């Protein structure tokens, strides 16, 4: 028996949605989609409502949270607008589930970013405290090489647009539930802070940095429930993950890669951009972008920066066991 909806169930579900109902078949199938993800360990458990996959209620709790936070708020309508077949629906919603869990994970750790930014700038020689204050939001920061920098007086819109102009950042980790998610790696956070200060050419306050972080990584922030000044101290640095965590991370990375990205990841180190682009039938720029995206997907799935190499190696090992696809 197929795990997908039948054509009739798919058509019935689409019709019912328009009149405001979720059919029993669709509801059961959505639960099945989560159960399949659970069974394959294709996603880390940390963003789940219960924080564990082996909890008996994990599938039901996850489904209800997904329905409440996303699917009943337009997610299902969008899915049925985009998908014309049951198999398309399974691909679309599997990805939607992944994205929703990722967004949950990011939200749960959002406020830590500003706190980490403050700690990083205080600890590193490249930054300088321009004006001190008791609360982090009122402290002004600049670059160490600046002498008497001006204080930023531009608009929030320019600030957020400047943050977008800094390029891509790898965002997510799949840590265990005990080690909370840093959202951005330390090196990316450093690049973000330095780049933003260089771009605006003036000292920025903690409030400005918070505005830039929230605007650029909007999906990482839920409506604030914790005031900036109430954020807890950071925990000790993370330790390196064990083999099981590396395997899980590699599997999660594999699930989020497209086959073209996996091919680029596998073949790029041994080949020139031109030759690889020729073989894949795409432009050099596309190969370059796919490579960057693939590396980011592995980074995002890695429990920490230090584990990236091990996770990448595991992804390539598993992929080479799977076969040598050539599309």
């Amino acid at each position: 028996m197929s795990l997908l909806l039948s054509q009739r169930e798919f058509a019935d579900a689409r019709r019912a949605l328009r009149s405001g109902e979720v059919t029993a078949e669709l509801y059961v199938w959505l639960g099945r989609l989560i159960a399949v993800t659970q069974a394959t360990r294709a996603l880390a458990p940390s963003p789940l409502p219960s924080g564990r996959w082996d909890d008996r209620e994990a599938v039901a709790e996850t489904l209800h949270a997904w329905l409440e936070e996303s699917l009943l708020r337009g997610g299902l309508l969008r899915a049925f607008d985009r998908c014309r077949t049951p198999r398309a629906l399974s691909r679309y919603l599997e990805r939607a589930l992944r994205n929703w869990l990722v967004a949950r994970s990011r939200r749960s750790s959002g406020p830590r970013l500003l706190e980490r930014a403050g700690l990083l700038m205080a600890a590193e020689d490249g930054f300088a405290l321009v004006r001190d204050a008791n609360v982090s939001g009122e402290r002004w920061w600049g670059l160490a090489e600046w002498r008497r920098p001006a204080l930023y007086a531009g608009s929030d819109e320019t600030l957020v647009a400047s943050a977008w102009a800094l390029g891509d950042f790898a965002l997510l980790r799949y840590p265990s539930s005990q080690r909370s998610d840093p959202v951005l790696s330390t090196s990316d956070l450093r690049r973000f802070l330095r780049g933003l200060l260089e771009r605006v050419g003036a000292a920025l306050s903690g409030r400005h940095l918070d505005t830039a972080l929230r605007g650029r990584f909007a999906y990482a922030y839920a409506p604030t429930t914790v005031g900036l000044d109430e954020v807890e101290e950071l925990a000790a640095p993370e330790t390196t993950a064990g083999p099981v965590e590396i395997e899980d991370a590699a599997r999660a990375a594999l699930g989020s890669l497209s086959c073209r990205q996996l091919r680029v990841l596998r073949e790029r180190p041994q080949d020139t951009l031109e030759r690889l682009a020729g073989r894949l039938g795409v432009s050099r720029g596309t190969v370059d972008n796919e490579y960057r995206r693939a590396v980011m997907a592995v980074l995002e799935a890695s429990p920490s920066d230090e584990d990236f190499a091990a996770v990448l190696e595991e992804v390539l090992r598993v992929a080479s066991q799977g076969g040598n696809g050539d599309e």
Partner: protein
Amino acid sequence: MNDKRCLSLMELFDLRAGAEDPEAWRHLGCCPRCQALLAGMPEPRFADLPPRPLRLPPRPLLPRPRRIRTGQLWRAVPLDGTDWAEVVAIVCRPVRWADAYLAVPLAQPPELATDRDLVLGPKPLGYPGFLDLANPGPLVRDQLVEYLGPLPPGQAAGLVSLYRAATGAGDRPAGVQTGLPVLSGQDPRLLEARVRGERLRPLWRVVDRWARARDGVGRVRPAGRDGEEEARPGAACDGERAGSSIRQLGGGRRER
């Protein structure tokens, strides 16, 4: 599974159980990602949840309008039978292209909109998004399979103004809800727009093919079908200017 060509975990389970799906098997034969996932697939052991009635805000089916107008939202499909549809907004019908319409696709999430895109709230469709002015394209009436309703008042004119501004035929409109400006080529929203452009290619293919056959200029099909009243170009759309825009599009997708 970024490009959605790869198989879902459910499809992989089905294949493992021996499902007869030639297309899926063909993909599996050439995709290292799906092969690797299938190789590590456990036995499927899970129980279905008991059914539970749920309700959400309805979005009634609308009758197909007689005339296609600027600012209408449609589900549009490629004519080659793929699994996917796109939601598009009609910009205009260039006067020299009898059966083709210029449309822009809906994209998500709204945070990825730039100052050239029109941001939509959840009102018309039941979910938010933005009209992707970086990826406009031509399609024909047969590709418009389901009418989803009009843009909220004022936004249709905003859409045309943004399109004209994007093609250099007008000024950037004021008072239209857009995203934040792009300040550098490194902005990842540009990369996302290019990725969407690649995904959308099959949707625009029909008219592109005609355009190439006709050197991108002139009439490609007789006006009107079966006595049906043909839509005039949208009231706010300058036909000649849009005509020149579509000639540009006929020569290949524009990229920002």
